[in-house]
């Protein structure tokens, strides 16, 4: 039993409250299932996510972190997610230098795309789980 829980990766997701978080709520109301290990944190805009939060989540034991926001151009605050894109792309480059690029992902999910949200999150969860199982 203990072994089973250990192999289940913990994923922290920073979700924009105007799109991705709405999509996750919609996925819930449509009774779609996504893995238990995914913990969502609601942020007012994806650009609220200081890369420090991501680094902290990883050092506190998360197996993966994703940042999710509206599609570029659809930001509730007009241009917030353009800044997110630059920051997270740079953070990925930094993780790449430390050979841990697979731990961080960036998704664009709009409020209507519940299925896409579930697919993306499940895909990420499965990939990380595979890697964990392989050692």
């Amino acid at each position: 039993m203990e072994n089973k829980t250990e192999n289940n990766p913990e994923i922290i997701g920073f979700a924009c409250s105007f799109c991705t978080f709405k999509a996750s709520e919609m996925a819930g109301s449509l009774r779609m299932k996504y893995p238990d290990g995914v913990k969502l944190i609601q942020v007012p805009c994806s650009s609220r996510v200081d890369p420090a939060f991501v680094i902290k989540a990883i050092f506190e034991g998360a197996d993966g972190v994703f940042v999710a926001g509206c599609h570029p151009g659809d930001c509730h605050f007009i241009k917030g997610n353009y800044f997110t894109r630059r920051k997270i792309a740079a953070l990925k480059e930094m993780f790449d230098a430390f050979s841990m690029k697979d731990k961080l992902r960036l998704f664009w999910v709009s409020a209507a795309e519940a299925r896409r949200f579930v697919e993306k999150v499940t895909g990420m969860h499965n990939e990380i789980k595979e890697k964990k199982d392989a050692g």
Partner: protein
Amino acid sequence: MQGKQIENNNIENALNQFLKDEQHLVLGFEKGKDGVNHRIFKANVDNFTLLNPMFGINGALYFRRLFSKGTGIILMLRPCEIRAYNELVKLNQIEKDNIIAVSIDCPGTVSLKQETDDIPAEVSQIAEYMQNSGKMRWACEVCREKRGVVGDAGIRIDKNGIFWAFSYTEKGETFLSLIEGDIKEAPTEMLINEQQEAAGFNTNMEEFSRDFSKCIMCKNCRDMCPVCYCIDCVFNGDEYLPRGDALINKIFRTGSSAMPQGKELFHMIRMFHVSQSCVGCGACEEACPQGIPLTKYFKGISERLQNMFSYMSGRSLDEEIPYLTFIEDELKDAED
């Protein structure tokens, strides 16, 4: 390029003339008995020297939160210091209106932690010494911009060891007009040339943990970094690096942890926060009591991240810091 030749103490005379105004100051290097140090000169310049072959601190550090209006200041500093000054101007930490930033060609520097008695005084000898003695700091060996081509004006050294002053902006013209002599054509061949770019930096977590295992979390690297400017750093307080009861609670919650707790977290977060503004001066490494190779990581990462946006920290005041601006049509492959 058109410039003025510096000879017969005319740079000292120029600065003394500038300092006749009571509201004017000059920050430069003073040659003392025990080496060369930064000094803010008022009224007149004594023992002034253009070159400082020793590195202990980045001079831009003194100018954070400088908003005084009406005080005219001339900075006579190394290129890395002027670049850090440029970054601080972009970050709204310095009111640049009355400041004339002059960058001086830098043949390289020796760490103040090392023996510095045998450094020669002549320019060409210094350049030779830096190349042959093997004492030059690693940060200077891989420095991207040792030429005095940043800031309002620059002082370059030609092949024969003669100093030339050039101006790049309007404020630079003011500085040039203080110097006696005529403007004439300078030689194109200079002592210090453009540096080749280093290959992309790569490492892994094991190496990183090993290098930083000696860290004692004194945070000197943060305090001495010229561009790490936040008044309220996230590492002040108990949120990121808990102590006492908060630490015990955290250990019960998350499991055993190496001490001092969170040192890798601290350096990684700082590495990202300064990534676009890091000038690679190596002041952090100078300040480190444990001799951790901080420059290797901070410079390597920041160069990679700056190359993503074809940006170079402190190169010019017109380029915006990449995190503070965006282009709508870019980074198409950022999404997974």
